[in-house]
């Protein structure tokens, strides 16, 4: 499968796949980290303008609890 000429299972997509396997039971954390990584790739910089701390606070406000 390709995305604009690039295989999906590579680079950031591969990282996200690994992430999904690692924390499948913590949706808030998973979403947060995916957004973070997308933000860092500058792929969708316009979509995620929030600074990190604001994003962390949002995740806590969503009711995040440490499952460990």
């Amino acid at each position, binding site marked *: 499968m*390709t*995305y*604009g*000429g*690039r*295989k*999906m*299972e*590579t*680079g*950031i*997509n*591969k*990282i996200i796949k*690994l*992430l999904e396997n*690692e*924390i499948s039971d913590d949706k808030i*954390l998973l979403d*947060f*980290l995916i957004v*973070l*990584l997308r933000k*860092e*790739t500058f*792929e969708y*910089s*316009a979509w995620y303008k929030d600074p*990190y*701390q604001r994003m*962390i*606070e949002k*995740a*806590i406000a969503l009711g*995040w609890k*440490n499952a*460990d």
Partner: protein
Amino acid sequence: MQIEKISLKNYRQFRDIEIVFNESANFKLHRFLGSNGVGKTTLLNAINWCLYNDEPHLTKESDVLPIVNLNTIKDSKDGDDIIIEVNIQLKSGDNRIINFVRRSIYTCTKNNINPMFKNTVLRVRYIDDEGNSIWKDDEEEVSQAVSRFVPLKLREYFFFDGERLETYFTVQSRDKIKNAVMAISEIEVLRRTENRLDEILKLYRRNSGSLSPDLKKIEEKISKKEIKLKELNKKLEGIETTLSDSINKVEEYNKNLEGLPNVDELNKRYNEYNDARKNIESDINIENSRKNQFLYDLSKILLLRGPVSDYLKIIKDKKNKKEIPVVNDKTLIQDILSDKHCNICNRSLDDNSIIFVQQVLDDIKLSTNIATKLMISESNLSVIDNMINNLNDKIKSQGKILITKHKYLTKTQQMINKIDNELSGHNQEQISKWHRERKTFQDIIIYKSQEKGDIKSHIETTTNELESMNVQYQDELKKVDKKQKYNYLIEFTKKSLNIIKNINKKMIIEVKKQIEKDTKDNFFKLIWKTTTFKDVTIDDDFNVRLIHIDDYSMLGSASRAETELLALAFTIALHNISGFEAPIIIDTPVARVSDINRENFGSSLVKLSEFTQVILLFTPDEFTTNIRKIIDPAAINKYELKLTSDEKEVILNVIS
């Protein structure tokens, strides 16, 4: 994605040219042939210009010329706008078409040969499999489209000069390779994220210090420990870099010293043999003096040898005849004389007989004296005779000693000559310098390996201490953070950071494994030698090692073509890990490879085109008859680039 077509208008020597790259079921190979300065590198630049708006392969000669075609400028009037356009048409595996079209506008001015730059725009057009097309010109969207084809930071792994393959594994390129792997696999994204989360975690901890003095103390301790850990990690990184550089250096020296004599070792042996020769010569002189002394001693008594020998012979004869020692019965004869009667014949002596017997008695006296003298002489003469024989024996034995010494001298001299031969014609100073420098790096490897072990154990201890401080911190935080303000923030950030760190480690391991496997597969798929190489390995620092069948690392001593092939195999592995299915364009692909290896390398490029689109730009010098025989049967498109008679425009000839 494959390049299907490139159209160039008014771009440097390309006034209006369309190059088609046909599809083929077998080899995706296209070749260009053109002398230097005709436009091969300009084509490579045109692709870069279209996609990234720069020309990284520009020569000094081209740099001073305007980007606008010279004939177009000549045909334009003052104030005319000239459009430069490069259109790259790509086709994806699912039959969608993408066009990257860069247009720049330049205005001609009367007093300036260089038209004035006005603007440049890159647009992208998507055509789906049903023929519906849509143009995009939003800067971010277009830049993303380029990034999905070949991102700027990775372009040099897709569009490059053949020279790049040659210098791929030098020490200078090592960091570049590591950075490229990090960029290609997007591990650098994880690193950036890790750093940011780490900063935020520290910030939260610092802020939480206001909750209690104890918490502040622990936080300060943690900060100090973290700084220490960071320093240790930096030190470790430095050691690893030095180690890796030293290993590469040793390999470089191995390559330089391949087939050359070990001059230091040979000189050492030369000196040893030379010393031995001097000793033997001195021994020979001593033994010769000794022999001469014997000869001198012998010469002094040698004249006596004849007479001594004669006398001894006489004595011997006399002894044999029992003449000596003389039987001396004087009393009997004296009794006969006094009795005047012979008791032996029992008759009386007359006067004549008495005179006769008296005479015999006198004679016996004389013979006894001679015999006694002879007897005495015999022992003295024997001493002289023994002396002569002894000296003779000594001279003979001395002769034997001298023969042995001379044989040894000849053998030693032969060894000296052999070493002389081995050393002759070589720059001994240079070789010796290389040996010394290699030894320095070998010593560094030993020393740094020990240091690495020490630092690693130090890091482990510090990490454990840090962990225990963190537990202490968490416990204290739970006590004082009644509203759980920082508790959640820190826990969440810490968990995020740990996950990212984990993924980072996993990614590095996976990427390394994948690149190692792909490089190895590609190399063994393309290499022409079947029994020389055993393995291709990649260490944690992404240093590529080529392992000989006898288990030693041999990249330093591999031929230029083999090194270039390994670089190509590694490049393809990078392509694979990147996920970008873009073509490979190589300018002067075999120029630096000679002899049979050039043909082998050419064949490998043909093989490569079975699974990747390959565009090769040859000069006539490198495109030998043999290379032509290998490349042309597989090439779908064969083009020849020539210049018009005024040398301002490229003519594209299609070779059938």
